[in-house]
């Protein structure tokens, strides 16, 4: 019974640094799920942290989900816009969860002025070692290939769709893009959605 209920639920953690576009990505997933008649709840960071702090969104798809928050070890999918933020959120993942992680670190001001450290290589190694189903996305290369860094959210979303953990298709997300974005941005974002498929 419990097993069956959980099958219908998808718990997604999105995380990154304020200003990276996690909110639009979660909106697109919610739109796509709602179009298919799936009930959606979410919780996210709004406020001071949006100025370069750590931010997260919890998205829960499915019926009988009482709360928007996701507990430790309960997430099916993580979409991380930044590797250190991905590590911060690891305790929320199920053992079998899929993780889509942008490899490009965002160095906080605190690390630049020497108030904290950011051992990037160690962090990437830790992710590789501890996440069973990991998709690392070379977002610097994606930005160069696509000619824009602004569609990182859709690049990651595409990789998340293909990880199958989302329960949504490229077509579903494509429809959500059409509904939410202005015509002139659609071409770029459609390419972004398929970017990791061509690798």
């Amino acid at each position: 019974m419990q097993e069956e209920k959980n099958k219908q639920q998808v718990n997604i953690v999105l995380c990154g640094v304020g200003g990276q576009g996690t909110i639009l990505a979660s909106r697109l997933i919610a739109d796509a799920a709602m179009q298919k008649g799936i009930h959606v709840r979410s919780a996210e960071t709004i406020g001071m942290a949006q100025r370069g702090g750590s931010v997260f969104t919890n998205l829960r798809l499915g019926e009988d989900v009482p709360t928007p928050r996701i507990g430790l070890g309960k997430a099916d999918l993580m979409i991380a816009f930044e590797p250190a933020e991905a590590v911060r959120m690891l305790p929320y993942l199920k053992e079998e969860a899929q993780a889509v992680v942008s490899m490009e670190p965002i160095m906080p001001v605190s690390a630049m002025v020497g108030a904290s450290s950011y051992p990037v290589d160690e962090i990437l190694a830790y992710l590789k070692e501890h996440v069973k189903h990991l998709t690392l996305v070379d977002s610097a290369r994606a930005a160069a290939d696509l000619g824009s860094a602004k569609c990182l959210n859709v690049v990651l979303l595409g990789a998340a769709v293909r990880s199958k953990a989302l329960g949504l298709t490229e077509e579903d997300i494509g429809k959500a893009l059409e509904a939410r974005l202005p015509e002139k941005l659609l071409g770029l974002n459609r390419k972004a959605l398929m970017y990791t498929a061509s690798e």
Partner: protein
Amino acid sequence: MHKEFLMGNEAIAIGALAAGVNYVAGYPGTPSTEVLETVAKRNPGSVYVEWSVNEKAAMEAAAGAAYAGARALVTMKQVGLNVAADPLMSLEYIGIKGGMVIMVADDPGPISSQTEQDTRTFAMFSKVPLFDPSTVEEAFSMMKEAFAFSEEWGTPVFFRSTTRVDHGYESIEIPDEPEYEKHEPEGFVKDASRFVIFPKLSVKNHALIEKRNAQLSKTLSEYPRNFILPAKGRWQAKGKAAQDGCGSGNRRAIATHGINYTYVLDAFDEASRPEILRVAVPFPFPEDLAAAFLQDKDEVLCVEELDPVIERALIHVCGKYGLQVRIRGKLTGDIAPSGENSTDSVAAALAAFFEDASLKPSACGLSDAPPLPVRPPVLCAGCPHRASFYAVKQAMKGQKTLFAGDIGCYTLGNAQPLEMCDTCLCMGAGINIAQGIWRVEPDTKCFAFVGDSTFFASGITGVVNAFYNQAQLTLIVLDNSTTAMTGHQPHPGTGRTVMGQVVEKVSIEAVLLAIGLPFVETVDPLDLEHAIDTVRRAQEVDGVKAIIFRSPCITIEKSRRKAAVDPEQCTGCRKCIRSLGCPALVLDGKKAGIRASMCTGCMLCAQVCPAGAIREG
């Protein structure tokens, strides 16, 4: 009706619109801001909406509208309620005619606030009934009930939510605009015996309020949103409690509220859970319902955020009705006394209370992870506040100084490497604090930094006070022509209103000159040399001096300019990185680099670079 994916605050706003609200006033503050913004966005055309200069103005204006029979909504964050406390305390004695809902967003954590105060406690103090929703859907539905309740009982009511409801999202059914209720205000009917507060009226009305609230306690025991959710599955059979690992024959249950109710539900299987008392209106407390809930229990765990309001109320009910029930929660150390709860902290508390390890949250930790960078929020790349702080810092180098900060984006000037915020208390406090410190330490050059919106909200009285009382200080108005931290709301200095009207701007310079300040100058902080010179010249003048650093918020005034480092000329001294702390400045090998995706071309770093290595690129 149609379905939409809505933020809690949007749902609250639509609930008010659907209830036929006529008048909406508020002051921005996380996590409440989106309520008023949504009313303005979805205004069917018949609703008056304003960003007031502060919460006190909003409360008073809404009270006036409600006196005249309008349905009024006033919105603020929890600390805003402190500003509006004076009118509110008296308003409860006067009462209202049109329904009046005071929407206050509490911020457990706190995530974006100075305090973790609980508006439920304020409700008890002010004797104002309070509604506390658990979900986005409930927030929408409850708003209509709150308006009807307010009108029926002639009292303003609190509609209190917390961050996770305000900023939670849910796909919910909402009415289309033609389905909104229509309410025609009757107009103000003069009656001095009702609307003019005098001790005689207060004596009479205080007695009536106490009587009414006692009556309401009974009425609210019947309110369907205050309910007892029966036990299910294995938790049903009380006699089986012991063998099910529920303790030695103890009959245990949960009392909870708000978002915590959803955390409790999440901890249990849908088919099997203990009995739960869910309190949606904690004041006046539904005593009869609580007594019925308690009568067959041995122990109750109160799962609450912020103050132990339900816990104290249940202890009171036990004492009053002579019930032998052990009430546990914050006062017994079973729930953390401060901070935000989570699904995990609640699950852990439930596991301990029921002595049932299966309820425990997953224990995976990060003990072996490499150190993670800390990421405190920072001023945006290109933020003009960075230039203002840097200019003052440079001008006053080597002198004994005090930099009093205030509430807004510019509180972030506290961080390394600027470190230009020595104090921050509450909206508008900086100016008075600088005055107080200067009186005690007259050899300190005292500065007060205040944003434009905060200046209008509660800064002006401080300037008048300092000027009248002969203080020596420099007021720095950081004017970016918006209320930036909360998402760019207009204010009296912007020349626009939330309803889209273009209005006469209130000039900060004219206000300061009218007060009589001997030095009032306006400078572009991104012109570093001029900015530093102005700060120095101000120090040669006695009394309260003011400098207005005016440059638009960089997130509104999109810039296509970029700065670039010439690696040939960069000596790798890192002065730009170490003195400005701009998130667009990074170390590229041994030289400075500029992250083009973030840079706005403010060119402050170019003015700081001793090698002249940074140019527009």
